[in-house]
């Protein structure tokens, strides 16, 4: 395992040079970009830019190589068997919609059941809700306990012979807890159920191996893992992808087109209609290089350290309630909380005044908030490039909030 600790430093991220006083703790929403990633995209545009895949000239061959090398990098990063299983999308949301439209509309019929974890992000919920409505299927929810835990027993009980698909995040963007995907996948497959794993919050933070997890689909976004916006990934098991009808249609995803019909290109191109985003793919590859060079050991160690520091300090402050597990180890850099008597928007505004960027609201998980009985919450989420001072600044502001809202203590 490589490990280059210099890569932990903020100095690799120009935004912190521009805003020296900024404490950025909204990493689950999107991460900042290291210079190496931005530079890689620039180099692509200045030295390799062309429309790839069909070009018969040098620059287009370079663009094709840049694109396909990025795909191979993603394949290795998540341990997929073949590059045919790696589809570039715009973001995790589009990846999940692709599965719902293509696999879902071809496989879900009236009377089927779809099971979704109640903590899912809207992007891993609405596509299934709409699919269920369209097909007359039933949408069931897997419930978690107040600590955000899903037990194997509860899961077995929620599964029925009619459950065709189960959708769950490996790490919820509210709880930060790692769900037992591998166990779920095994039970799913015994039951003939397809498992869709939302990896938007896990792939950037822990090593994810699709073969060892044995999931059928995995979706994630580049922008949450150092890469530019506008590039995402859908991993799909080849046997499934091959049987699925196309989703978006157009240039580059066909073999032959006549007036009456068309035959489609091989995987993965079948699912990539129109001119692809080579710049985005190159940026994602550079982000993976950064992560690989740093190593997940270093990333996890650092993120866990900082999580623990923040968690322990937060527990000391009265009127603060952390959502989810009552131990730092189960939070993976995500600490969602409420403060008695203070609305999350006011909390966020006070943090902003102190130049600490955190998020307030429903975090695109309204059904979970309904389940937990809270209207909205506040979330701090960290990345390996945060440091102790960031946590101290966060805690310092947190301590003043009730007072600044007019409470006595």
């Amino acid at each position: 395992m490589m490990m280059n600790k210099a890569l932990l430093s903020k100095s690799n991220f120009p935004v912190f040079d521009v805003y020296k006083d900024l404490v950025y703790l909204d990493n689950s929403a999107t991460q900042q970009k290291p210079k190496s990633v931005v530079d890689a995209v620039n180099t692509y545009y200045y030295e390799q830019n062309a429309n790839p895949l069909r070009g018969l000239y040098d620059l287009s061959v370079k663009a094709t190589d840049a694109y396909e090398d990025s795909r191979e990098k993603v394949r290795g990063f998540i341990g997929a068997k073949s590059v045919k299983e790696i589809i570039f999308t715009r973001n995790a949301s589009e990846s999940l919609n692709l599965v719902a439209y293509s696999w879902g509309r071809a496989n879900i019929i009236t009377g089927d059941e779809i099971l979704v974890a109640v903590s899912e992000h809207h992007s891993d919920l609405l596509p299934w809700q709409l699919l269920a409505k369209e097909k007359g299927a039933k949408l069931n929810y897997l419930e978690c306990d107040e600590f955000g835990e899903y037990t194997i027993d509860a899961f077995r009980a929620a599964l029925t012979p009619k459950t065709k698909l189960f959708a769950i995040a490996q790490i919820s963007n509210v709880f930060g807890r790692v769900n037992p995907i591998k166990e779920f996948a095994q039970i799913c497959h015994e039951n003939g159920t397809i498992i869709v794993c939302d990896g938007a919050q896990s792939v950037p933070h822990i090593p994810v191996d699709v073969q060892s997890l044995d999931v059928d689909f995995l979706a994630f976004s580049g922008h949450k893992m150092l890469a530019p916006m506008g590039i995402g990934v859908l991993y799909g098991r080849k046997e499934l992808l091959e049987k699925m009808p196309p989703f978006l249609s157009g240039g580059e995803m066909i073999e032959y087109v006549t007036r009456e019909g068309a035959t489609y290109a091989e995987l993965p191109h079948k699912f990539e209609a129109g001119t692809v985003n080579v710049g985005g793919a190159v940026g994602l590859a550079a982000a993976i290089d950064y992560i690989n060079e740093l190593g997940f050991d270093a990333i996890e160690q650092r993120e866990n350290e900082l999580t623990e520091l923040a968690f322990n300090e937060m527990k000391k402050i009265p009127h603060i309630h952390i959502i989810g597990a009552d131990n730092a180890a189960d939070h993976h850099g995500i600490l969602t909380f409420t403060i008695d008597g203070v609305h999350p928007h006011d909390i966020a505004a006070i943090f902003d005044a102190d130049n600490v960027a955190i998020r307030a609201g429903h975090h695109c998980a309204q059904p979970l908030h309904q389940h937990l009985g809270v209207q909205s919450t506040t979330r701090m989420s960290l990345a390996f490039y945060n440091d102790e001072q960031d946590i101290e600044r966060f805690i310092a502001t947190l301590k003043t909030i009730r007072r600044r809202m007019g409470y006595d203590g």
Partner: protein
Amino acid sequence: MTDSFYGEVLADHNLHPLHRHDMPCATHVCKGLNPTCGDDIELHLDIHDGIITDGSFTGIGCAISQASADIMLELIIGKTPEQAKYYTALFRRMISGEITEDELEELEEAGALQNVSKMPARVKCALLSWNTMEKLLDGGDS
């Protein structure tokens, strides 16, 4: 309380609202909501002989939306619907940063919300109760 974040006026109206209670027999009721932040409000007014004789609000929201509602009611109770609409127009201009000193005076305590013009994300919170009142006076809800 001297380091109060939003200023003492807002903190006070948020923590100790004068008009935050139910009014089951109000002549007019109207709901307002800000989908993006999840704030919602129910506004109750008694209007008799062309005068807003009483008013109250219920619902949930941030300090800015709560204080704004409370201050608004303080300002318009005893006034005519036309006057209330005039204040709404003034308030909107204050929030967009286009108000004169004299006009600001007219808004009395509502002037404490002037800083919201520098918080684009909070404009909707400040306007929620005012928009709801306008909807009510224009015949919205029951």
